Each structure stands twice: as C-alpha cells, then as structure tokens.
C-alpha cells in the first residue's frame, strides 16, 4: 500500500508537470500492455507451480513519455508481473528517466534505466515484441531478469556513423541494481546455491557497456556486452548431516564479469540469431558453524566461477502477416558445484505467434527440456532430467 501510494503520487506529479510544460513541448504519450499466460510441465516445477499448470504468469505496464524540448525527453513506465512467487503483481517503476540529446554520437540518460545486455534485454518485459514467449534461458535467465533489467544510474549512448563500414551504437552505464528480497534474483541464488534463506544482499555499482555494429552486410548486426560488478549476500544454509542446524553463510562475489557476444541476421521474413554468454567471478563463501559449548568454526571456501559454454541459436520466420514461427536451441552449463559436477539445461523450443490484429497477440510454445538446472521438484518431490514445458500467452497493447 505504501509503495502504491508513492507511485500514485509520482503519476500525479508527472501529469501535473507534463500539463504545465512550456509552449513547444509535445503532448504526453501514453502506451500500455497487459498479458496473461499459462504454464504447464509434464514433470518438475519450473518458474511457478507448473506441475499442475499455473496462471501465475502475467505482465502489465503503462508508460508516459513527453518531449519537454527539442533535446529533453521525460518518461516513465509502471510495471507489474507475476511469475510463481516472483512479482506477485506489485506495481514498480520499470524505467523512469530524463534523456538529453546532444549529438548523434553523444546523449545522456539519468534515472531508473534498463541495463545493457545482449541484443534482446530491452524487450524482456513485453513479450509481444518477440516471437517466443520465453527468451532462451542460457543467456536470458528468467530468474535473473529483475537484476539485469533495472539500474538506478546514468548512461551515455550514441551512434557513430562509419560510412561504408555501417554504423555502431554504443551504450555505457554505471548504476546501482535494484534487487528486492522477493526478487527472482534472490530466489535464483537460493535455488542454485542450496541456501534456505537470504537475509541481506549488497551490490556495488554495476558498470556496463554494449556495442551494436550494424554491418555493411544488409541485415547483419553484431553485438558485444560487458558488465562488471561486486556483490555480497548473507543467508542461512543447512547441512543434511546435522538436521535442524542453521549455518550462517556469507558469499562475497568479487570481480563478477559478464560478457555476451551476439549476432543477428535478418533477410526478408527470416531472422537468425545466436548469442554466447560468459560469466566469470571469484567467490568466497564463509560458513559459520556454531557448536554448543565451543567457539564458532569458520569454514571458508574459494571458488572461481567460469561459465563460457552457454549459448543459443535461433531461427524465426514470418509465414504470413498474422503468423510467425521460431525455433531455438539453448544450452546452459552451470559452474562446477562443490562436488565438482556441472548442472545443465538444454532447451529446444518451438513457438508460434499469431498477430490477431495490431493490438492483440496470441502465442503457443513447447519446450523439450533436458537437465535440472533451475528446476524445482514436482509436487511429489521428484526431479527428472527429461521433461516438457508448454506455454501459452495472450497480450494486448495500445
């Protein structure tokens, strides 16, 4: 209620400010979207309680933008989503910024911004902008969406025209990620790290840069992303050898670096794309074991994270004005766990998109999955390597 109240005040002030803009300012543009999906798995639970089917899969947003002057634009988008335990339809500010345009090659944005990440992070929140319901999880992990998607900071961006070599769009950013304790990022850390609960998460500033080169070969774009950050979180773990024992745990992630290498080729109605995800970091986990009557014992484990084998390839084709289909193969390989094993998730996804009219989009999609990474046990407590995920979604936008 408290947050909703702040947002209502924000909207009111925005409209008030926009209404009193100087002569020459443009009107306020309002756009919005709402989507409702359904998820079902034949084995396991994935992202929500999908074993029995789940409607806890929706997104909605409304945005306001206005050009205050020839060079200054203000805008904000309010957003709510529900995906299993994540989001729960709480309204948040998705993006809100002031953009100052100086020259083609140098412009500035300040406020709550979307982080630079691969070719498609910008369109994550509104699935009607793409063919598939889910972006490939090897690069666009659905759990980590809120962490990568929103930073409070400052961004320089622009376009450099290279003449016969095409053009390059760059984006550099520094900002503070906005990760709440009920976010997907926190749930992902819990699930993948085997941690019972997380009590605190501290992020240093995140530095990010992205270059997108529109090459002289018509339809070919090549993109590189680099992100650097440090993070620390505290939580409680348990040891199955000592039932009922709570082990306080601190994990310090230093020099966390993420790189994404991307390529996209569009020829008429055909679209091909591929992206490769790298993640490197130095992790130090400190577990404090309290034994009654004795001094606490600190157990410190260092681990270098090195993920370079995660990638996807996709092909999409629009068969008619209303029908588009796409297939992707995505493979995620996790870092080595304490026992020296790596978890995988291989995903073969076929999607159909139906543009009913310019406002309504319907989608159907099937995933053939192989692996357990990010997977939760089914309602009987079992996990399976081979499983299927079915998704359907309907979206409206204006």
């Amino acid at each position, binding site marked *: 209620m408290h947050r909703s109240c702040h947002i209502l005040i924000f909207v009111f002030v925005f409209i008030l400010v926009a209404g009193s803009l100087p002569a020459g300012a443009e009107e306020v543009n309002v756009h919005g979207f709402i989507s409702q999906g359904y998820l079902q798995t034949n084995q396991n639970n994935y992202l929500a309680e999908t074993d029995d089917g789940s409607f806890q899969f929706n997104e909605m947003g409304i945005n306001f933008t206005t050009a205050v002057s020839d060079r200054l634009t203000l805008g904000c988008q309010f957003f709510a989503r529900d995906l299993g335990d994540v989001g729960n339809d709480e309204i948040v500010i998705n993006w809100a910024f002031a953009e100052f345009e100086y020259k083609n090659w140098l412009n500035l944005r300040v406020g709550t911004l979307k982080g630079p990440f691969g070719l498609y992070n910008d*369109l994550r929140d509104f699935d009607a902008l793409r063919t598939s319901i889910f972006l490939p999880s090897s690069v666009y992990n659905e759990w980590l969406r809120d962490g990568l998607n929103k930073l409070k900071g400052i961004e320089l961006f622009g376009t450099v025209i290279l003449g016969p070599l095409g053009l390059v769009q760059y984006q550099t950013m520094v900002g503070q990620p906005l990760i709440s304790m009920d976010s997907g990022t926190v749930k992902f850390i819990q699930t993948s790290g085997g941690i019972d609960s997380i009590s605190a998460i501290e992020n240093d500033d995140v530095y990010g840069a992205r270059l997108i080169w529109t090459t002289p070969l018509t339809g070919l774009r090549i993109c590189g992303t680099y992100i650097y950050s440090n993070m620390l979180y505290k939580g409680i773990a348990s040891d199955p050898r000592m039932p009922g024992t709570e082990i306080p745990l601190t994990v310090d992630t230093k020099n966390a670096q993420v790189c994404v290498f991307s390529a996209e080729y569009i020829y008429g109605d055909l679209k091909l794309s591929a992206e490769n995800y790298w993640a490197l970091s130095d992790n130090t986990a400190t577990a404090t074991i309290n034994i009654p009557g004795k001094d606490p014992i600190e157990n410190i484990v260092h681990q270098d994270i090195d993920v370079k084998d995660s990638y996807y390839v996709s092909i999409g084709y629009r068969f008619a004005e209303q029908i588009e289909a796409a297939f992707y193969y995505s493979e995620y390989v996790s870092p080595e766990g304490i026992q020296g094993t790596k978890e995988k998730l291989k995903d073969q996804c076929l999607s159909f998109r139906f543009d009913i009219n310019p406002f309504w989009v319907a989608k159907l999609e099937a995933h053939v999955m192989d692996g357990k990474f990010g997977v939760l046990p089914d309602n009987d407590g079992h996990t399976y390597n*081979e499983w299927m995920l079915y998704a359907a979604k309907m979206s409206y936008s204006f």
Partner: protein
Amino acid sequence: MKMKFKIMIVAFMLCEVMVSGRISNAFAGDVMIIANKEVPAEHLGWEEVNGIFLGKIMRWSNDDRIIIVLHSNDDIHEAFLKKYVKRTATQFSNVWRQNMFTGKGRIPVEKNSDAELIDYVSKTKGAISYISSDVTLPPGIKVLAK
C-alpha cells in the same frame, strides 16, 4: 524425445504450407525520399535512410532533430521499407513498438494522404518522409533519394 522433435518440425512445415500463397506487394511504382528544404543534406544513401527510419540516427549534421513522417498507405509504406529500410512492415513496426515500450526515440508522425504529408513536411523543420515518385512536389520540399 526424437518423436517430439519430429512433431515440432512437421508443425513448422505445415504452417509454411498453410500460408504459402502470400499476396505480393501491389504497389508497382517507385518511392522517393523527401525532406523539408531546410535540412542540411542533398542526398542520402539507403544505409543513411535505414539508420534514420530505424531511429539510430536522430539528428541532422547541423544537430537539428530529425522528424520522421510515415505514409499511411500500406503499399507505398511497404515499397519504401523494401527499397530503403530492408525490413518488412511487421519488423519495422516492432522496432518502433520496442522504442515505445522502452521510452527510447520519438515515435514517428503518420499522415493519411500525399497532400497532408507534403504539407506537414514542407512546414516542419527537420522532417523527412517518402512518397510515390510520380507525385509533383511543391517548392518547400527537396528530394534526398530517388
């Protein structure tokens, strides 16, 4: 597992067969790129037109804002996209929808007729658009590509 994969392939192919009789573009004429006579350019290559209409290039060389004006006639719009932007109408629309929902770029203006479009471009500083090559242009407009 292999059977499921085969089912997916068959579904994909069926979709292609279902819609194989797509209607081709009905506009037989050519389109030209026009702009307000004040813009600091005399000629644009398709790459520059592409960059402007996809929102990558936002300002003219004198830093004046580029105002994109679209023609609501589907045939002229599609002929323009095919020749200069190398995108289908859906792909082009998605680029601007993406900008709309990420707050980036300023949404293009759309005009319903040649007369409206010519009037707007001739009176708007920095405006750029496209029109059938057969149309006779008034003095306030220059041709940047034909």
